[in-house]
């Protein structure tokens, strides 16, 4: 048997129309194709050069030939009626080379595409920089074209899927690992940074620990993708301070070392005009007090720093957020200077009510009572920076996300260079950039989505349902990924790139499997990504020499008296 015969899987069938973009193949007895397998066939037009048609299996079916009624199956199984099983596969064309769009002819031999053929079929051959994105069902690597991620020809990733089953964050983390460790970024990998907002559990607080549950088989999968398995080499972790803790110890339960608490000083809050980020709910957008917010923010700029993050506002010393709220309240009630001209009493009262509502969620994040405030600023010094939000109330989450992204964006804008890249991983996009309304955070995210490509800020956004996220943000993403989708959600227009059977399959995807769509390949590819090589919970965490280092201040967290 020569090689061609071994790879022959079937022939183009002639009972269903064969078109340049889609055709059916009857399988040779004893051969099989599964969804996502890659095949190739050749058409030799008279007088022209041979046209190679590559495609991917988008549906497979088997039926009894000879059966006319559904119940004939019992007769056939009973040995009474003759019937033959015939399997057929629907092929969706991915590539026609050269681009002569003619249908493969019925009867044409269809081969399984392997090696170079498979690379051709999936455009991997033309990718100068290939980012491993997982492995296919048959265990072969699947790549993304980095040019569609790094801003050269496109940018941003958007991931959708049901919480808990879709493994969105894990996949986003895997992509980062791949970026940093597969060598696709070259020397730039060292300076490339990633900022991850951790919204659920303390899953991401162990990125720098090896995963002791990783099996040898998993390790081989990493190696087959061209990267060594292991934890993230350089990572910093930030968590909000514990409520009521006078030393602002980080509010995490599973990790005691290597986590820094983060907060903003009253001084920063006043001078950087962070007040609007307190009013970032969809509901705030509809209120009249937006004017008051901006007037007050402008007034706060005049506050005088008094050291350790505190300020003096027109003679009153402010060290806590509660004090700040009280000062603002008395100022806006005093007259028009703070509230702004022609603002009604009702509007002022609404503003005050809202402002008081922010005390509880934000008290611990905006303060002027800690001596080493600069040490608690979120800084992107390590390769990966994780900002933990998971135990913050929604209002505080929005504040943190909004302020951190704005600051990062401004810094990147100031640097004026797109390289090295900064990857921004944010789950629950629907909270920060909902379809309806506008808010300061949505504006900043839109800025990232629309200008990030040239600034070198790449948004890796995720949400349960893309239909609830601002279309311009989802639409700007070159790479679309879906994990398991809710079936009603899968029908929505946002998932137009999933066609036919692919869409149905998205509703039954298992954890660890994603459909990845990229601009060059006309069909989404199913990928499985290897089990994380880094720990995602304390029980998985192996020893990490870096995290075992002595903290800078061995007495940190102890009463200072």
């Amino acid at each position, binding site marked *: 048997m020569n090689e061609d015969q071994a790879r022959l899987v079937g022939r183009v069938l002639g009972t269903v129309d064969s078109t340049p973009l889609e055709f059916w193949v009857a399988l040779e007895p004893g051969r099989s194709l599964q969804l996502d397998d890659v095949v190739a066939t050749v058409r030799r037009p008279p007088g022209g050069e041979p046209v190679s048609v590559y495609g991917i299996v988008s549906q497979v079916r088997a039926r009894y030939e000879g059966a006319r009624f559904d119940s004939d199956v019992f007769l*056939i199984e009973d040995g*009474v009626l*003759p*019937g033959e099983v015939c399997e057929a596969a629907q092929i969706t064309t991915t590539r026609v080379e050269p681009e002569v769009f003619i249908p493969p002819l019925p009867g044409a031999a269809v081969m399984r595409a392997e090696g170079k053929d498979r690379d051709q079929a999936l455009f991997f051959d033309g990718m100068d920089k290939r980012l491993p994105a997982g492995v296919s069902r048959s265990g072969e690597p699947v790549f993304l074209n980095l040019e569609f991620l790094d801003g050269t020809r496109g940018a941003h990733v958007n991931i959708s899927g049901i919480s808990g089953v879709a493994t969105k964050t894990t996949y986003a983390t895997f992509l980062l690992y791949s970026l940093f460790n597969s060598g696709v970024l070259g020397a730039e990998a060292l300076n490339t940074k990633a900022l991850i907002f951790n919204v659920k559990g303390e899953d991401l607080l162990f990125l720098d620990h090896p995963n002791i549950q990783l099996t040898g088989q998993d390790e081989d999968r990493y190696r087959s993708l061209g990267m060594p398995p292991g934890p993230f080499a350089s990572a910093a972790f930030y968590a909000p301070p514990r409520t009521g803790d006078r030393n602002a110890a980080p509010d995490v339960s599973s990790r005691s070392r290597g986590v820094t608490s983060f907060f903003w000083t009253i001084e920063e809050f006043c001078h950087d005009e962070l007040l609007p980020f307190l009013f970032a709910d969809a509901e705030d957008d509809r209120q009249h007090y937006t004017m008051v917010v901006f007037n007050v923010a402008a007034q706060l700029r005049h506050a005088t720093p008094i050291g350790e993050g505190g300020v003096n506002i027109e003679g009153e010393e402010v060290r806590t957020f509660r004090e700040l709220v009280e000062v603002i309240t008395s100022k806006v009630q005093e007259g028009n200077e703070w509230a702004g001209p022609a603002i009604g009493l009702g509007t002022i009262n609404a503003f005050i009510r809202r402002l008081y509502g922010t005390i509880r969620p934000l008290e611990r994040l905006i303060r002027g009572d800690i001596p080493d405030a600069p040490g608690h600023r979120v800084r992107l010094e390590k390769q990966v920076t994780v900002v933990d939000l998971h135990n913050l109330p929604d209002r505080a989450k929005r504040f943190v996300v909004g302020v951190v992204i704005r600051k990062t964006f401004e810094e990147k804008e100031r640097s004026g260079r797109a390289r090295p890249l900064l990857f921004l991983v944010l789950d629950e996009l629907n909270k920060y950039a909902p379809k309806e309304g506008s808010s300061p955070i949505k504006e900043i995210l839109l800025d990232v989505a629309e200008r990030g490509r040239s600034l070198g800020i790449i948004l890796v956004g995720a949400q349960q349902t893309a239909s609830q996220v601002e279309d311009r943000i989802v639409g700007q993403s070159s790479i679309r990924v879906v994990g398991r989708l809710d079936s009603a959600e899968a029908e929505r227009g946002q998932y137009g790139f999933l066609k036919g059977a692919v869409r149905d399959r998205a509703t039954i995807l298992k954890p660890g499997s994603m459909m990845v769509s990229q601009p060059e390949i006309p069909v989404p590819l199913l990928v499985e990504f290897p089990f994380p090589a880094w720990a995602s919970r304390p029980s998985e965490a192996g020893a990490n020499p870096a995290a075992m280092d002595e903290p800078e201040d061995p007495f940190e967290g102890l009463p200072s008296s």
Partner: protein
Amino acid sequence: MRFAIETWAPEYGAATDHELPETGATVDAEIERDLDGWAPIAPPSLDPPPERILFTDGVRRVDAQVWIEDGAASCPGICATFAAGAVLCDGRAEVVSAEVRRGLFTAAPQAEAIRCRHVSYPVRSAPSGDPDVLSLALQQRMGELEITLAAAHDAPLVIVDGPLRGRQSVPGAVGYIKTHHVSYLQGAQEQVVAALGPGQRTPVFLMMSSWSRFSWYLRLPGSIGHPWAGVVRCEASADHETSDVIALADAVAAALPRFSSKPHKDPRAPQNLYPIAGLERELRRRLGDAALLYRDLRVAAA
């Protein structure tokens, strides 16, 4: 060779049934039972039931009627496709052989094979140009093909669709006749046929006409709408010993009810057995597309 294609559709004028009734047959009904003992016989419960049953069938189709030109005169002929095959039921029903042949059936001495774009029709001579004779020649060729195929498989029981005539030589062959133009039994014996219950058979009798064979009636399961509903007649070679033919009749009566069809699936239920219906569909499929071949023939004639 110049020839023309009859522009009428091929079905016109083709004789449809060639199992012409033989009215002159004499019957010896006292082979298994004496005349007074005639009564329905229930099949013995054979354990295990007969395995390895071969069903054979053939199909034929006139693709076109042709006129072969011979100077000023024309000689008629038919271009036909015929096929025969066999289904072996041995736990699974499987089409074990199926062959397709084509032919130009004619009496014209100067006839040559007709080659078309997709197929060709070799000459198969017939004794005369009479439509019935041509049709019978086609029928014979099909029957010969059927015998060849049936003989190639080793099965203890071979159910041949139609009369056994010409196929007695196949070991274990039983002719299976679904339609009854003539009643071969008279009086009380005929009443026994009407009295058959589902699965029951009549005693074996010997039929003698131009050829001799054993025969018996068998009622297949199904609703009994009229006295002859679901009744088939089986034929076995007259070369059998009497005891052998009785055993054969019992085996057939035990085996066939399982294969009988249901009315919603087959208009000829229950007599048209499932394996034969399946085989017939498969064979018809293999005959090729009639419209395509008709067009080919007209192109070849032009």
